[in-house]
């Protein structure tokens, strides 16, 4: 965080009253801390997306292609035909305002253009002008305006201040989903090369190396090998992950963020320990892939086509390796893509089998076509059947709450599985207030590729409603651990917590599972996966908490 950054007490003084000037008359002010840097042309070029060039949002001239207005207009038209959602959502909003204070970015910033309705109106105003007669005739009075450079800049600025969390769509009486509008808007922007680099470069990386971080195969293996050493140090057990193994029963895919940075790494270690336990005890045969080494999909934040291109690796790799089905790790938007898009885009998957847990025999009927199971579904089933040897007291130093990640919540409906798992591996679990969890959950403030360092003010203000709810349970119950099933959460929430509720740490669910999981031949386990001493279990004979 930059030094001049305001203190929490200052940042929370939010003015929610809109300005005096009409929103169409209020000029765009692209403010530092609220936006991400422009896409690197090399990344845009690498995946063959159009109009790659260096440009800077702060400069007047964005070096747009000459016919950019035509490109936008035609792209708009095409999408209205291709997506009924887009057309309907352009047409039927009555501006009742129910969505206004549902958006975490509006709550946190007070900027009226962060009200979902107004964010959508940014596009609707152009839609009315370009595609409706009433808009053409009545013009501004009816909320229509022609596309201009200023409008375009407004689009760019505010469409990258929406994390497609769909919270507004829960409250909209017509189910208007701003995520859908943002998705279309970003697609249009990408037609003229206006992406942010925090998305464009991971996309290019993922296309080439299989993951957003650009981790090459040998390095990917190295990183997991490093975890193997860590796990051995902490538990005394040496796990043996399998890579790119042909003929394995199951392919495992999880976001690369968890391989790369704390605290996600502990979740990755958690997976490895769980798989090891199952392998030793039940002969579980699962493989990681270096080619499909990314669960997340920043293509989803670029365009439907890019999403499909990146997602294709999952099925392609499952086919190549000849596995029976795919197990997916903890990730947010990854699961929206898998749940609502993957099978349609890259299916059908006749080369896979309907997923059955090889340990419990449970058929995952709800995944019988897509053939991909969420790890909390898988683990919940193991726990239900008593297949895991758990000692939840190893999580007794934690008072845990659970953050529902947007996409698994409102794009999938995954609510009870993670809670079931957590409650079986932890003794102290507390829910945040009902208006901030489950389908009402608040975004971490950094979703859809907005988890950069440059837009920290946006992230901290957008994450405020979430942080405020955490603070509530922290003060009320002494909660000190915020669990989640999303890698972006694990990357983004620590900064949010550090700013708003510094006493609370962030964890993945499978880190908690692994803390509780007893492995055959383990040591006394005096520490948790982070190497922190467990109270009451401190060093009997040995002192080994070095990192």
């Amino acid at each position, binding site marked *: 965080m930059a030094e001049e950054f305001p203190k929490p007490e200052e940042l929370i003084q939010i003015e929610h009253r809109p300005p005096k000037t009409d929103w169409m008359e209020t000029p765009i002010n692209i403010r530092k801390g609220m936006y991400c840097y422009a896409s690197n042309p090399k990344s845009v070029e690498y995946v063959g997306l159009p109009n790659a060039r260096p440009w800077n949002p702060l400069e007047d001239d964005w070096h747009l292609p000459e016919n950019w207005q035509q490109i936008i207009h035609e792209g708009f038209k095409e999408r209205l035909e291709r997506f009924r959602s887009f057309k309907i959502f352009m047409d039927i909003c009555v501006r009742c305002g129910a969505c206004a204070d549902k958006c975490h970015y509006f709550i946190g910033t007070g900027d009226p253009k962060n009200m979902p309705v107004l964010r959508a109106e940014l596009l609707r105003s152009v839609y009315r002008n370009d595609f409706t007669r009433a808009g053409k005739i009545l013009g501004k009075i009816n909320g229509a305006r022609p596309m201009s450079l200023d409008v375009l800049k407004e689009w760019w600025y505010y469409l990258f201040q929406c994390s497609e969390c769909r919270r507004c769509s829960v409250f909209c009486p017509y189910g208007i989903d701003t995520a859908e509008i943002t998705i279309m808007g970003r697609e249009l922007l990408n037609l003229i090369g206006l992406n942010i680099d925090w998305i464009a470069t991971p996309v290019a990386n993922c296309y080439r190396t299989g993951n957003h971080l650009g981790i090459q195969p*040998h390095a990917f293996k190295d990183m997991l090998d490093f975890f193997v050493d860590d796990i051995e140090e902490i538990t005394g057990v040496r796990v043996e992950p399998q890579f790119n193994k042909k003929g394995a029963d199951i392919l495992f895919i999880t976001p690369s963020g968890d391989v790369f940075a704390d605290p996600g790494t502990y979740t990755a270690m958690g997976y490895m320990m769980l798989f090891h336990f199952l392998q030793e005890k039940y002969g579980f045969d699962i493989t990681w892939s270096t080619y499909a080494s990314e669960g997340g999909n920043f293509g989803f934040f670029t365009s439907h086509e890019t999403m499909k291109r990146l997602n294709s690796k999952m099925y392609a790799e499952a086919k190549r390796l000849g596995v029976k089905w795919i197990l997916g790790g903890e990730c947010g938007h990854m699961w929206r893509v898998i749940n609502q*898009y993957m099978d349609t885009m890259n299916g059908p998957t006749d080369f896979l089998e309907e997923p059955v847990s090889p340990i419990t025999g449970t058929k995952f009927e709800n995944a019988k076509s897509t053939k991909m199971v969420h790890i909390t579904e898988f683990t919940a089933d193991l726990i239900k059947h008593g297949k895991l040897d758990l000692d939840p007291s190893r999580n007794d130093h934690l008072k845990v709450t659970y953050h529902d990640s947007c996409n698994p919540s409102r794009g999938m409906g995954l609510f*009870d599985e993670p809670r079931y798992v957590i409650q079986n591996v932890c003794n102290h679990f507390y829910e945040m207030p009902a208006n901030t969890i489950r389908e009402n959950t608040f975004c971490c403030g950094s979703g859809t590729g907005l988890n950069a360092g440059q837009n920290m003010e946006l992230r901290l203000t957008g994450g405020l409603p979430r942080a405020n709810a955490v603070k509530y349970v922290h003060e009320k119950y002494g909660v000190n651990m915020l669990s989640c099933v999303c890698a972006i959460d694990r990357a983004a929430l620590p900064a949010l917590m550090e700013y708003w509720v510094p006493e609370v740490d962030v964890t993945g669910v499978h880190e908690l599972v692994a803390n509780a999981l007893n492995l055959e031949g383990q040591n006394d386990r005096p520490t948790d996966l982070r190497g922190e001493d467990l109270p009451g279990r401190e060093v009997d004979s040995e002192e080994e908490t070095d990192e």
Partner: protein
Amino acid sequence: MNSRYMFSLVAVIVLFLIAWAGTAIGLQVVFGIIIPYIAIILFIAGFAYRVMNWSQSAVPFRIPTTGGQHKSLPWFEHAKFDSPVTRWQVVVRMALEILTFRSLFRNTRMRLKEGSKISFQLEIFLWVGALAFHYAFLTVLIRHLRFFLEPVPFLVQLIENVDSFFRIEILYPFIQFGLPGVFLSGLVLLIAVTYLFARRLFIPQVRYISLASDYFPLFLIFGIAFTGIYMRYIAKIDVAAAKELTMGLVTFRPAIPEGVGAVFYIHLFFVSILLAYFPFSKLMHLGGIFLSPTRNLTTDTRARRHINPWNYPVPVHTYEEYEDEFRGKMIEAGLPVDKMPAEKPAEEEPPAEESKPVEEEKKE
């Protein structure tokens, strides 16, 4: 103070004057016959066009908003109507949405308390107001079937009776046959419209987003309700004559009866404008809600494959290309490879070091 609301207000006043002046100069045929016919044609054709137009757009992906626990393992209680998986569950979800405005019922209001606590309280007024408005409108609409059907169906009479159970005991000296029942629906409609207008005016955020096209129907409906109430309780127009005209319209034997005052024509003109305006405005949310993809689709997206009619093949980075680029490193790291290098490692791959995307430090 607000040009958008003034614009709409002036528009409705102008419409009022047009109808008033029109009847004054004897254009009853225009306002009583021609315009209503045009309006109804525009309404039906326009509505059908809009719905067909929406239907022509594809539904490439199944993107329902899941508002509750999905159907997964048997011991987790499935939220049937928030994450519906069968057609019937979707029907129930849609019915709850359309008949009870369920999503709006969830509405909360955010408050920043003591400068640092954010709270969310149930905000029920919009839901109550919207429900009152729509149901009052529906009741008024059904009541008006009396003017278009002969004999008046039992259902219409029943609704009239229920609607007018509330009788105000004001004794006018010149009342002939007891007291006319006061139709609650008309009053509720007027009050609800006033409320919906007031919140656009007084809630700063809602005022900020409101367009002329948001105020216009409110003023228009206010005008309709007001002229209707005026005719019934104050002007006490000749209902039989009015019905003669409306029956003429529906039986395609239009005629202009004597003794129907200007207010009636203004009322009819407002209704005609509303009908004609309907398909080309936000009022089409009536039709759109049925087609809303976040509500009307099943959520069993992993169990049943959805077909995208325009799905097309895309360029992908194949495993072969990947292995060709990294084969050497993979072998060195002990990772299995599909093709062992025969003579020389593949060099002709385009993504050489220069074109390689910049690596970033910390990213998910």
